[in-house]
């Protein structure tokens, strides 16, 4: 049962353009959503999060949008830079309901930003 899905295994964009990474979820109990970036041979690095009571959160070049009715979130990177090339994971937590910090991750999307 894949509760968090990233249906695009890979994405390629040109430097300076927008990158849009998508994520769908099925569990309506999720109350926080997070995006992580992972380079080879490193652990995932926290990028940005959003609470289920919001529909947008912005941090510099990164913006996360949440559409609760569609159970869909997306990460926008503008402008994209070659250093953004990495695997991006969407993750969800039902922390308030479960009283744990358990994260459920999607399968990841490999982003390649071409110079």
């Amino acid at each position: 049962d894949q509760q968090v899905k990233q249906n695009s295994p890979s994405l390629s964009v040109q430097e300076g353009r927008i990158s849009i990474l998508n994520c769908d979820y099925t569990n309506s109990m999720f109350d926080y959503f997070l995006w992580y970036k992972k380079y080879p041979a490193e652990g995932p690095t926290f990028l940005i999060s959003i609470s289920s009571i919001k529909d947008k959160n912005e941090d510099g070049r990164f913006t996360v949008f949440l559409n609760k009715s569609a159970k869909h979130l997306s990460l926008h990177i503008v402008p994209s830079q070659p250093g953004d090339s990495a695997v991006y994971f969407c993750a969800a937590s039902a922390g308030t309901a479960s009283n744990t910090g358990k994260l459920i991750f999607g399968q990841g999307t490999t982003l390649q930003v071409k110079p």
Partner: protein
Amino acid sequence: DAGVTQSPTHLIKTRGQHVTLRCSPISGHKSVSWYQQVLGQGPQFIFQYYEKEERGRGNFPDRFSARQFPNYSSELNVNALLLGDSALYLCASSLRGDTNLANYGYTFGSGTRLTVV
């Protein structure tokens, strides 16, 4: 300030053997979680410990066990290793184990790459 440190970075074990993986959280962090990442998949939750008590357990067999020590470091033990246990094992720490995620997320270590042959 040191980040999350995991040891060893790589190891190779034979089927049926036992393995112990170690994790030191960021200083001051009281919660440690363990995740397994199989190639091509996202990390999968194994355990969470907070203040030395188990807070959560994922869908893993009893061959997997863990504990947290008074200094908040943690060990993950896997008995009777199977080929399918080959994966990257990630440790993550946070100040707390629940709503703190909203602001900071977890800080992950670089992982231990386990290969079972």
